[in-house]
């Protein structure tokens, strides 16, 4: 067993425990808000889906997946991917809307 007191060879990279717990609480809170909003009706549910869900995903990406602490390259890779997905969404709807 490696001794736990061994000097760290790699620096701590990412949020501290307090930040992680706060993010987790925020995620649970946003989930509760989403469930409450969805109980109000279909429109509110879709509104929640389009606003609160990307916010929750962003919290996971930014803090749990350390994107906040990464350089421009990894952020750009994710943005290009999401942009590509958005183009696919747009093209699909442009197609079905004019059938």
């Amino acid at each position: 067993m490696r001794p736990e007191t061994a000097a760290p060879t790699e620096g701590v990279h990412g949020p501290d425990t307090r930040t992680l717990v706060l993010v987790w609480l925020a995620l649970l809170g946003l989930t509760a808000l989403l469930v409450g909003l969805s109980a109000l009706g279909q429109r509110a549910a879709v509104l929640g889906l389009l606003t609160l869900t990307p916010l929750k995903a962003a919290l996971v990406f930014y803090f749990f997946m350390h994107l906040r602490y990464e350089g421009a390259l990894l952020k750009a890779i994710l943005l290009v991917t999401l942009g590509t997905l958005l183009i696919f969404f747009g093209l699909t709807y442009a197609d079905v809307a004019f059938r």
Partner: protein
Amino acid sequence: MTSGAHASAHPSDAFGARLGMWLFLVTEILLFGGLFIAYSYMRSRYPHEFHAGGKELNVFLGVLNTAVLLTSSLTMALAVDRIHRSRVRAAAGFTGATVLLGLCFLGIKAVEWGQKFGHGLYPGGPALLALPPGEKVFFGLYFTMTGLHGIHVLAGVSVLTAMAVLLLRGSAAAARPTLLENGGLYWHLVDVVWIYLLPLFYLAA
């Protein structure tokens, strides 16, 4: 804090490993993204049937599973934090907790699917075949997307179990942050996919 804070003994190795993992993860985003597009198109085509299908699902179990998976993401992030601080046993403990929560998620999913199966609602099942076309599509997408997600949870649980065992055995490779960090990135992405599946099927259908 900036990327300059990664005071690593092998900075290019560690970054290269993360870069490779992220490139894999974006292919996963596009895989599920394609299914999200299919869902949204079908939902716009069959709004009433999707609404009826969504009412059949157990919202309580869906929300409970969300809480379980969000908590597992916290324990995973804590495991990665501890490994960066060379606290190997704590990292193994948090990784083990993540595995248990992942198994809990799969257990709840099994109960949920079991209830549907009991009512004849499974691909090719009698109750499913009797439904109108739009609801067949809804349940087809439900089983495909939650099933594919479940396979990802199972893969994550397998990888993290191996990581926990390696850490407890004192493996030097596992004690370097790279492996656990990449396992964690995968786990968090699986969590993000579920974050979307909850409203799509249980809340906003």
